[in-house]
């Protein structure tokens, strides 16, 4: 019964979120000082007025905003996401095509930042005040405050341009056919953008884990464990991880939104053909259907991340499981 209620509440929250996101995106797009017609035909076009009329009609550029939004929403609910005026292709096709690239990038960055951040956080806390701890802490604070695209540019110019260890841009070798491209090619092209993107999350998770671990290290049960003669390794394994992993996982799942935003920047720095570049193009060209499509899509994605965090909590932590079952 409670699960049903939980499910119902979740679905309700998700729907209200989606409605809010789409309405807000639409309003922002309407308020933006971009004329979709100009973005579409350019300023040097000599199209006749008749042709412009037909274009406006085809892409419903002249209808009042409320009617346009209603039409979009109606089609969207029926599974038709509309056509992108920028790419002249169905929005769904564009999103899926681009997301194929982004999803692996985000997944890699997310995993990397989670594992590395957590390990670094633990290590720093265990050796509190040491040189290593100070380096990790400073580095995290720097990474945390540095903009993603700036880090991306540094990484690009060092590893790709200067050292030439990695390719400059794209998700596959130039000129290689799809069936010739190996997994290694794809990974090779993904390393730098994924590294850049993981830097975004690493600082937060490290600092958080370190802080949490420090609290635990000062608690009475650790004192007791020490008194029992447990080694540091045993303390970390038996008590540290058990008490810090859950919050870290939650934090990591909750960072889906930053991941999405960061991906857009990392992709543009590395000319990676993911969803970020499509989003930028949609914004600059006042491509309402594509922008709304991506907004809704990303909202679902982020919502799923947060939901996963909640569910994991329930599954992994018996205290919460019992509390919610009660």
């Amino acid at each position: 019964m409670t699960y049903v209620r939980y499910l119902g509440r979740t679905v309700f929250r998700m729907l209200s979120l989606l409605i809010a996101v789409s309405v807000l995106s639409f309003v922002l797009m309407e308020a933006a000082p971009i004329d979709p017609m100009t973005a579409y035909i350019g300023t040097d076009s000599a199209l006749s007025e008749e042709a412009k009329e037909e274009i406006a009609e085809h892409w419903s550029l002249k209808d009042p905003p409320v009617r346009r939004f209603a039409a979009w929403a109606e089609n969207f609910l029926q599974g038709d996401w509309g056509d992108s005026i920028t790419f002249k292709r169905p929005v769904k096709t564009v999103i899926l095509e681009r997301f194929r690239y982004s999803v692996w990038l985000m997944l890699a960055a997310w995993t990397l930042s989670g594992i590395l951040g957590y390990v670094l956080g633990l290590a720093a806390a265990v050796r509190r005040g040491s040189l290593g701890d100070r380096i990790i802490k400073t580095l995290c604070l720097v990474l945390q405050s540095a903009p993603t695209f700036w880090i991306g540019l540094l990484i690009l110019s060092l590893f790709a341009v200067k050292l030439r260890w990695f390719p400059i841009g794209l998700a596959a070798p130039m000129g290689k056919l799809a069936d010739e491209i190996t997994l290694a090619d794809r990974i090779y092209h993904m390393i730098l953008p994924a590294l850049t993107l993981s830097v975004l999350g690493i600082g937060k998770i490290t600092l958080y884990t370190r802080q949490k671990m420090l609290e635990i290290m000062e608690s009475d049960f650790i004192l007791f464990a020490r008194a029992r003669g447990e080694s540091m390794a045993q303390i970390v394994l038996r008590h540290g991880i058990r008490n810090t992993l859950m919050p870290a996982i939650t934090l990591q799942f909750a960072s889906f939104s930053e991941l999405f935003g960061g991906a857009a920047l990392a992709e543009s720095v590395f000319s990676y053909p993911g969803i970020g570049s499509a989003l930028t193009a949609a914004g600059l060209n006042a491509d309402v259907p594509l922008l709304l499509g991506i907004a809704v899509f990303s909202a679902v994605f982020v919502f799923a991340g947060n939901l996963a965090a909640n569910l994991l909590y329930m599954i992994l932590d018996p205290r919460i499981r019992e509390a919610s079952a009660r």
Partner: protein
Amino acid sequence: MTKTKVRKIAGVLCCLLIVGVTACKGNEEREEVSKADDTNNSLVCYVGHGFWEGSLDPVKGAFSYGWSFINNALLKVQPEGSYVGDLAESWSISEDALVYTFVLKEGIRFQDGSEFTAEDVVFTYETVKKNQGENEKVDLSKMVSVEAEDSRTVRITLSEPYSPFLDMTAQLGIVPSDGYDSVVFDEMPIGTGAWEVVQYDAGQQLIVKANEDYFDGAPNISRVTFVDMDNEAAFSNAQSGQLDIIMVQPNYAGETIEGMHMEKLATMDVRNVSLPCRALQQMTAPDGTSVKAGNDVTSDLEVREALNIGIDREQIIENAFNGVGVPAYGFTDNLEWGNAPEMKDGQIEKAKKILEEAGWTDEDGDGIREKDGLRCAFEVYTPSDEQDRYRLAAALAVEAEKLGIKITVKQTTWDEITAASYQAGVVWGFGQFNPIVLHQLFAFETFLTAQYANTPGYENAETDALIQEALDAPGHDEAVEKWKKVQEVYAGEVPYLYLVNIEHCYFISDRVDISKETQVPHPHGHGIPIICNMKDWKLL
């Protein structure tokens, strides 16, 4: 004890890093090998960001530049700017200028093996007409009907005489009526052209291969890859030897890349600044809205004249574009209908004299002239996403100041520029084969009706009559004559201050010959036009 633990962790991390790096190195070597394998007869090119993101379907406006690539149009433009038959063998226009008859070439096949006939032309034109909303490049709104007289003859009927229709027929690539699929053609269009799509990853790369059966002779190069990235990434890639052709902005003109040389290619792209010709007043647009239009400074013909002859265009180009570009006084000679006046600029003294005689003198000694208390100052707008236009306006302002005219340069969005365009100068860029642009810029009927058209509010009965005669002309040559006259008439009134004819800069690998003599003048839109004659390119 704990210290060793940390060391172990650090050690493991270091190992991971080393493994990662060596793995990458191994990869790099492998890539070089594969590159050496197929560099024999293939190229990798960068011709600009964003060309390879949308649909490749000519029905939806792809490749409508006037030259052929994957698909051929009925006509095509030639290096000297005139038209020649591409899929059409010959064409004729009826006396009343309403019926265009095209006789098609024989024995041409599409890349899927099917034969090219009049049916395909009819199908293509009808499909575009039906879906005009999806094609913002080829305007068929004046077309009433298109019929196949026989398998080799197509008759197109217009609703009214409209000479620029002929230019449109050079812009619409023909698709096969049987094989056409509006979804498939977004990525894999089939045409009669010299190049066949092998693979298209939107936003990443387009790979084309030579059509060995191309009716106009098979290309010399067998495979070409176009990559999509930003200008800086492309430049870095070129520096590391990954690219054979790369488009660059004029500010890169001073750079060098090993194994590549710089080419500046001629365009028909001119940059000009609109100068409102009417005194500031409240006007009513045909749709009933009230618009504030005009400018009290630029409406003075002497001010416009003084600017036209007084500024030094060479100097402006030097300051704005590193010297890349050619001074422009009108539409360029490489257009069939282009007719720029013969004139000399940089005549500062003469310009000053004109201004003084017109009553513009510097009374308060601040270097800027006044007349009846009105400062000789106006604003020029540039779009914030185009730095080159901003640089151009800033360089113009420097030259104008020498004459005692103050230009304030503003950078903003096109939306705000549109609102300001009737009262201030705007830096425009124009460059297309179709002379219809003259109607848009100089016909009074477009003022306040069409956006970006005749923003100076230029009004001249003789010009309007000539434009109408050009549109109604029953033949292409007659139309060209009229269009040339139009330019003679407005030249003295300077509604637009022409500044520069852009040149497109590319770095070309020393092993590639891009056949400069068969390049057509590049239209507006830096980058892609270099591939207009890719069929003629050779490896040295």
